[in-house]
Every structure is written in structure tokens, then in C-alpha cells.
């Protein structure tokens, strides 16, 4: 049982890293939303599995929140925004996709190198989950800085949050209230960012954050 439980947990966590790479690779808007939904699905599966093996029923609620809010509501809402605003459906990147992927591989290697020696005393499950979740967080950050488009920056931000949930559930005993408040803050962030998107669109006729930078008078 233990061996199997561990393997399945690793499968989900490793799958999440893989889906993060898919996010990084994707350069079409709707494709990006679909893969983000998949990202959230994998997280909720992972959390549900943790709930099962840790016998912590409140984690099922976490998994449910992740599934409903992030896998369904947010992608659907973003898709509607994109349709309503008629946003250009391809995404400008900074640097080539290939270089970004290589950098992402380097980040995963870095997070494994950092995490495994540090957490030598912790249980196997926690150790490798922490390494995976750090990879997911760094990949999300990489995505935020390597995309010029506001929507993909939002997706990057939310994938960072998924990585945090992965890390938090791997460590036993996170209170439910923390999880609920995090989920709530994500919803708030969605609302704020949605309004923000409308405002950008109204004022600049584009979704490219580059326009904002020009307006602010920063370096072109």
C-alpha cells in the first residue's frame, strides 16, 4: 500500500511539472486555457490522493475547491473575456520557445538540487513533493516573465498558486481555513485581473502589456 501510495503521489506531482512545461510551450490562447484547466485538474487529483493517504477528509474540500474554481470557473471566465474582447489569439513571447524550455529544465534541476539535500530528515513523500512544487512555482514565474500577454501572465500566476497548494498538502496538517482563504484570494485576484483586462482593452486597444509600458514612459 505505502509503496503504491507513494508512486501514485509522485505520478500526480510529476504530472503537474509536465503540465507546467506544456503551459510554457503553448502559444495559443485557447490552448493555454485548456492546459491550465488540465493543470488544475491534476492538482485537485493530487490533493484528493493526499486526502486519501493521509486520511485527512478536509483536504477533499481543498481538492473540490481547486477543481470547481480553477479547473472550471476560471478557464470559462477567461474564455468569455477573451471572446468578448476579441483578443488576438496568439501570444508574443520574449525569446524563443526552445530557449524557454531549456531554461525550464534548468530550473527543475535546480529545485531538485536545492530541495533534496535540505530536506534530508523529512519523509520521502514530502521531500520529492517539495522539489516538484518548487519546480512548478519557478516554471510559473518563468512563464510570467517570458510572455508579453496579460492573459498568459494571469495563467502563470495561477499555476504558481497550484504549486503552492501542492507543497502545502504534501506537508501534513495544513488547516482548512488557510486553504479556503487562499482559494478565496485567487477568486478575488481573478475579479481584479478581469477588470484590469477590460481597462487595458478599453484604453489601449490591445492586450499586449508592452503598450502599458510605453504609456508609463519606461524604456521601450
Amino acid at each position, binding site marked *: 500500500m505505502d509503496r503504491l501510495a507513494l508512486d501514485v503521489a509522485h505520478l500526480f506531482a510529476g504530472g503537474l511539472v509536465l503540465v507546467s512545461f506544456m503551459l510554457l510551450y503553448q502559444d495559443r490562447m485557447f490552448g493555454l486555457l485548456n492546459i491550465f484547466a488540465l493543470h488544475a485538474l491534476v492538482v485537485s487529483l493530487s490533493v484528493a490522493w493526499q486526502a486519501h493517504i493521509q486520511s485527512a477528509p478536509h483536504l477533499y474540500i481543498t481538492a473540490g475547491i481547486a477543481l470547481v474554481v480553477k479547473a472550471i470557473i476560471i478557464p470559462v471566465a477567461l474564455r468569455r473575456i477573451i471572446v468578448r474582447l476579441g483578443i488576438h489569439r496568439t501570444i508574443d513571447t*520574449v525569446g524563443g520557445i526552445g530557449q524557454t524550455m531549456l531554461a525550464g529544465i534548468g*530550473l527543475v534541476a*535546480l*529545485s531538485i*538540487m*536545492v530541495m533534496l*539535500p*535540505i530536506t534530508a530528515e523529512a519523509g520521502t513523500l514530502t521531500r520529492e513533493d517539495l522539489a516538484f512544487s518548487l519546480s512548478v512555482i*519557478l516554471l510559473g*514565474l*518563468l512563464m*510570467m*516573465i517570458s510572455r*508579453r500577454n496579460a492573459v498568459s501572465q494571469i495563467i502563470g500566476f495561477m499555476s504558481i498558486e497550484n504549486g503552492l497548494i501542492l507543497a502545502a498538502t504534501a506537508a501534513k496538517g495544513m488547516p482548512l481555513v488557510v486553504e479556503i482563504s487562499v482559494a478565496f484570494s485567487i477568486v478575488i485576484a481573478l475579479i481584479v485581473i478581469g477588470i484590469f483586462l477590460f481597462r487595458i482593452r478599453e484604453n489601449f486597444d490591445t492586450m499586449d*502589456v508592452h503598450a*502599458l*509600458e510605453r504609456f*508609463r*514612459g*519606461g*524604456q521601450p
Partner: protein
Amino acid sequence: MALTIVLSCVAVLLGTSALAVAGARSSLTSFFVYGVALAAGACALGAAGAMLVIAPGSAQTAQLPIGLPWLGAHFRLDALAALFLVVINLGSFTSSLYGLGYGRHESSPGRVLPFFPAFLAGMNLVVLADDAFTFLLTWEFMSLTSWALVMAHHRERDNARAGYIYLIMASFGTLALLLTFGLLAGPNGGYAFDAIRATTPSAGLSAAVLTLALIGAGSKAGLVPLHVWLPLAHPAAPSHVSALMSGVMTKVAVYGFVRIVFDLLGPPQWWWGAVVLTLGGISAVLGVLYALMQHDLKRLLAYHTVENIGIIFIGLGLALAFRANDMRAAAALALTAALFHVFNHSVFKSLLFFGAGAVLGATGERDMEHLGGLIHRMPLTAIAFLAGSTAISALPPFNGFVSEWLTFQAILLSPQLPQWLLKFIVPAAGAMLALSAALAAGCFVKAFGATFLGRPRRSVAQNAQETDAWSLAAMFILVLLCLVAGILPGYFIDALAPVTQLLLDARLAPQAQLRWLTIVPIAASRSSYNGLLLFVLVAAAGWLGAYVIHRWASHALRRAAAWDCGFPDARPVTQYTAGSFAQPIRRVFGGFAFRAHEQVYIPPPGQIQPAQFHLSMRDLVWDVLYAPIEGVVNFAADRLNQVQSWTIRAYLTMVFGSVVLLLMVLAVWH
């Protein structure tokens, strides 16, 4: 009992400060605030003085439930604290008395009155504090209230810059003290002074503590090279506050140093004495050299504070050196000299600042080159200022002489020290002390001569009026104290004995019972000094001289043209000026210390434009130490300024880059 009285006085002062905020617009507030401060100062002075005389060996403690929760604020009154309470409250008593008169002319009382009692309360509390937290909090409170007083006339030129530099230096000093106490408390975090006393830090740690204490207390006291704020900030405040800052607050800094190094830190190493001595000697000489170059009366006095702090630190350094070699009697002598000079300097420096304030109030001028001849218009102020000048120049029979003489007696014991380095340094410090005493006398000949003698150089000096009775009373109380402490030093030295007993476990032999009020610090065969005899001698010689001249000389009648005092051209600008008085000294020392550069332009024959004389001086310490720091800070600020206009993505990239970098460091580290 004494502690309760002093703490009640502090509470009254803080309450007065709050009331003064409310009543700042009323004209009675000034009278009320200074009156209360006067009474509180007198009460605290009486309590602390009685404690020092009647029950010197005892210590009183109190704990108040204020400050950090569950810790409270600890207060303790021992002999050392009592001595400095006497200094502080003597200063606050006289400056409040002075303020009763001087404060009526204050242009913006709302900026002075609320902070004045709070400043007094802060200084009292620093001396009473018995745990590191209370000490630091009250220290910073004292700094901030004095800063507010410096900024009272913030619209005047240069005052804002003075306040800015003072704020930076005060924060820097407090930071150093914070680290000092952090090291002293150790990993267990025992911040009560009792707990710190009980532990003995390792040699390296105590060296670090000494360095930090020198920086922290030295920057407040005005030790070179941390003195730069002092001659800017002290003159900027109203004169009675200048007197408090220069005469008293620097002594609170000395208290901080003595408390940390002599009381809390444990047994000293011999080289500590060498470090403190060297810094003291440099401060003494540079302070007086700076003062000689100044023509601003209050700034001149502020630079003399640097000099006198140097003299005090010479005494403290000697005490450390003797104590490290277990020469307890010699250490007691050096510490007595330093502490006596603390008292003396607070008395005559307050007196001199009061005099400068009276001149400023009467003429509106601080520049001596615009004054002159004030002895005719303000005779009483002139007498008081002359007495203060004599005292600070270390001339008998005034008090400055006694403490500097005691310091020299301690210096003359230095051949008994075993370390060769000390054998070299101590006589060098003695030479510096002698040089600074002589230069100080020259400097006050200049200050008194240019301000009070000669003929008025401007109409403001010609139309000056004698200052008010309150101010005169404050000044003459201090003149009397200067004289009494100079004539009867034995009683004062005996009053200091419990402090040296507390810190060094040794004391000077009792002096007051000796015949004819002589003081004998070491042995009668070595040296002795009798202030009373000298006073009688000076008075008799003066009287006799005057009598002889009047009896025989003035009756001989001679008809001649009136002597023109050496300047036949009657215009006041042809008088000998302060600048011309200082020129020889500037020629000797100025080339190195000030990079003084004189340029004379004499027009060729036939041209009618005037000859010109240009003098440029640079502050060496500022150029070497502070200008580079300023440059680096400005450079970094300019670079960082560009960050402000970065894009959001650039910010994110920076965050991402630093996270990855730190993770890499972490990965390599393990």
C-alpha cells in the same frame, strides 16, 4: 527615596511637555514651562546630591510596568547615576532659570516649549535606565527631542542641514549602541544590566563591544572623527538649549561610555586604554584648532566641547590603562580627574553658552567680527563670560585648572606602566593635553577680546543692552560654582570617591580634612595644590598692584596727546580682528589640518582697485571620511533611481533572477 523623587520629577516634566503642546499659543506658557522645569530640576538636583553625599554606597532600584510587555522598565540609582544626575539637573536648573528671561524673546515658542522639558526628562531617564531596552529607548528619546529643538528655527540658513546631519549621526550612534547591547546580552538575551554584569564576554567580543561603544557614545559626545554634527547642531538650537546640549547631553554620552566599559563589560585589556587615550588626545587638539578658526561665537564654543570631551576621554583612557595593570590608586586618580572634568565642563560650558546667548539676544549677532566693545554696554555679562573663559582655559583659581591638573598628575604616573606602547602614548597624550590647554587659552583671549573689548564694529554692538535679571542670575550662579569648585576642590573630589569605589574598587585619599584645604592626589612629596591659597595670592597681588598704581602712579601729572591705543585711524574696522588674532596659529597648523590656503592679490602700481586677501579652508575629516561615504550613497541612489521607471515585467524578472540566484547559492552551499 531619591529615585522616587527623580522619577516623579521626570513624570512632572513629561506632563509639562504635554501641557505645553496644548498651551503653546499662550504667553504665560513660557513662564509656566520654565518655572516647572526649574522646580523639577532643583528637586532632582537636591535628591541626587543628597544621595551622593549621605548614602553613596547604596543603590536603589525600581520597576515600572511601562515599555515592553512582561519586561517593564527597570531603573536604578547608584553613585555613578547620582553623579550624572547632579550634572544633568544642575544644567537643567540653570538653563531653566536662564530660559525664564531668554525664552520671552523666543520667536516660535511652540517649537521650543513642548520639547524642552521632554529633553530634560529624557536625559534623566537615560542615566537611570537599568536595562538595555530602557536605555536605548530613552537615549533615542533624548536624541529626538534635542533634534526637534535644533530644528526650532528651521527656516534659518544651514539649520535644516544641521538637523539632517544630526539626525543621521544620532541614528548611526544609536545603531552602534544597539549592537553593543546585543553583543553584551549574548545569545541568552539577558538585557537587564544585572544579567549583563554577571557574564564576562570573551576577549574578541569585548574588543567589538569597546569599538561599538566608542562609536555609539563617541558620536553623541563628539569624539573626533564623529564630531561633525556637533558644531553644526549645537549652535543652531536656542542658546539655553545649546548650553544643555553642549554642557549636559555630551556628558550623558560620557555616562553611556563609562557605564558600558567600566561597569558592564568586565575587566579591561591594557590596549583599550591606548585606543581611548589616542582618540581623546586627537579630539582635544583638533577640537581646539577648529575652535581657533571659528569666528562664530556659538560654534567656537561647540568646538571647545569637542576639545573638552577629548580631555575627559584622556582621563578615561588612563583609568582603563591603569585598571588593566591593576594599579587601582592611579586608576582612581585618572577616573576622578575625568569625572571632575565632566562636572566642571558642564558648569563653565553652560555659563559660556549663556553668555553667548545674552550677546546674541542683545545684538542679534553671533559673528565676533561684527561685535566688539560690549564690556561697556553689558558689563555683567562680560564679567561672567570672562570668568567662564578663565575656567575653560584651565587658569587657576577656577575649576578647569583643577581637573586638568589632576589629569596631568595621572599622566605623570605613566612611567610605572609596564607596556612600552603605553609608555609612549601617554606622554604624547600629555603633550596634546598641554597644547590644547594653551591653545584654548589663546582661543578665549580671541573670543573675549573680539567680542567684549575694543570698539563696536557694527551699530548693533554699539546699541546693545544688558541682558535680563533671570539670565544674569543663572550666569552668576555658575560663576560662583566655577570659583567654589576651583577654590575648594577637596570637597568635590571626596564626593566623587563613591563613584570610583563603585567602578574601580578604589578611591583617592580623603581630601577635605587636609589642612588649609590643600589637595594631595598621590603623596605630599610629589605634588599638591591649594586653590584657596592661590586665590588669596591672586586677589592680594591684584589688589596690591592696583593699590600701588593708584597710590603713586596716577598722581604724577603729565600733559600729552591722548594715547591712540595703537590705531591712529579712528574707524573701528582698523582694529585687530579675531581673524588676525588666529592667523599665526593658522599658519602653523592650518596647512595640514585645514588645507588652509591664503592668496594675496596686490594690484600693480598705478591701478586703483583694492588689494585682496582670499582664504580657503577645507575640513580634513570631512574630506577624508565623510565625503567618500556621501559620494557612494549618492551614486547608489542615482543608480537605484533608474529602477523606479522599470516595467512590471522587468520587476518580475528581477524577483525571479534573485530567487534563482539565492537558490543556486543554497544548492552550492550544501
